[in-house]
């Protein structure tokens, strides 16, 4: 029996997204259920971010249908998103968490704030203006803000795209831990190494179409499409 309070599975049926005359996503059918992280892999402009925004209900499909478990579209979302370049509010790290907790309708007490900051390793920076944090710290604070929603599904849009290896490792460690705690992670990346490290399954997109979908080991060991084979070989696919 389905859980009527769950956002999962997210089911897309022949979904297209059009901006003016440009097709950003074309006829995408996909189901995202519980389990290990799903990574949306593909070159820039393949539609990964648009797919995340659809999942987050920040945009609506031009055609097709999208459903979230048994929930109605109007109900409160149990999902959160971290953008590639998250915007920090002009206040301290702790105040950013307070704001996110309040927006989520959760108690914004000191213990909750401290717990979230500790989860992302920012306990010592609670009073620092958020915009003065480093890129990696800002991403971790954005993760903490997202976790303030107690999400069932966490969408991540290339959260390590502009980070150095150490900061990337710190963010990836948090993602692994979050996924281990039962949060469904859906993450966009064009970093093959990252996809190998994190993915339970892969959705490979090119030009707004899903070229291939499969479990991570199979995808990397024996991709079934020419586009995926070329992408994995390092060719420029677009």
């Amino acid at each position, binding site marked *: 029996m389905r859980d009527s309070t769950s956002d999962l599975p997210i089911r897309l049926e022949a979904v297209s997204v059009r901006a003016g005359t440009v097709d950003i996503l074309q006829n995408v059918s996909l189901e995202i259920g519980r389990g290990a992280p799903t990574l949306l892999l593909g070159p820039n402009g393949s539609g990964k971010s648009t797919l995340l925004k659809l999942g*987050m209900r*920040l945009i609506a499909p031009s055609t097709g249908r999208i459903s979230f478990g048994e929930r109605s579209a109007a109900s*409160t*979302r149990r999902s*959160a*998103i971290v*953008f590639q370049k*998250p*915007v920090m*509010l*002009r*206040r301290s790290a702790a105040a950013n968490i307070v*704001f*996110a907790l*309040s*927006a*989520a309708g959760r108690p914004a007490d000191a213990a909750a704030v401290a717990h979230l900051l500790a989860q992302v390793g920012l306990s010592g920076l609670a009073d620092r*203006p*958020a*915009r*003065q944090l480093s890129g990696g710290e800002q991403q971790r604070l954005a993760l903490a*803000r997202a976790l303030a*929603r107690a999400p069932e599904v966490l969408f991540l849009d290339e959260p390590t795209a502009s980070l150095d290896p150490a900061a990337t490792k710190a963010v990836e460690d948090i993602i692994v831990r979050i996924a281990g705690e039962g949060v469904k992670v859906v993450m966009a990346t064009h970093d093959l190494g990252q996809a190998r490290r994190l993915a339970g399954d892969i959705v490979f997109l090119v030009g707004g179409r899903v070229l291939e979908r499969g479990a991570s080991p199979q995808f990397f060991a024996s991709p079934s499409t020419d586009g995926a084979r070329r992408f994995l070989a390092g060719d420029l696919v677009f």
Partner: protein
Amino acid sequence: MADAVHLIWSGDANLFAIVRLSLVVTLSATVLAALVGMPLGAFAALVQFRGREALVVILNAFMGLPPVVVGLVVFLLLSRSGPFGELGLLFTPAAMVIAQAVLITPIVAALTRQVVEDLWSEYREEFQAMQVGPLARVSALLWDARFSLVTIMLAGFGRAAAEVGAVIIVGGNIDGFTRVMTTTIALETSKGNLALAVGLGLILMSLVMTVNALAWSVRRWSEKHAA
């Protein structure tokens, strides 16, 4: 110049009464303009409605309102035969407050709209993702724009403090009652009493410099502490 400095240094009662009235009038006008202009600016920035573009154009255009025209309009409204004549406000400090407030409200509203709109375009996606409600959205935007809003208020204060055309029309420049720094400078210069005019000029310049220094300090402080 020496006479002017002596006048200030000696604490001339007449001079400081004029300075005090100027500050009261200008501060009152600034508060009034902020109470009207800031919500109006935030409304124009955040709410889509028919005529919004026209409102923005009008606010921007009114930033350059000619003070004498404002003075004339307020004079007509407050004169005995005008719609608010019964209030008996003409040639009182209250009329000067109204004239200055009318003059700087478009400045406050237009600059607030720009600041809030810029911040909203930055925050929009995050707020949508966090499902932030309308009230929380407005209060968060105003709070995060607080340093810019203070700077806007200081700019409005500076504009009002330096104003002469409107207040002389609606205030009448009555000695000991509606005489403020700018109107006194104009009058005393024409009478050849340069010591008082220069003394008030020095104070007015100091005031404007202080306001600008405050605006600059607020900006620097916000960059350091709230980024």
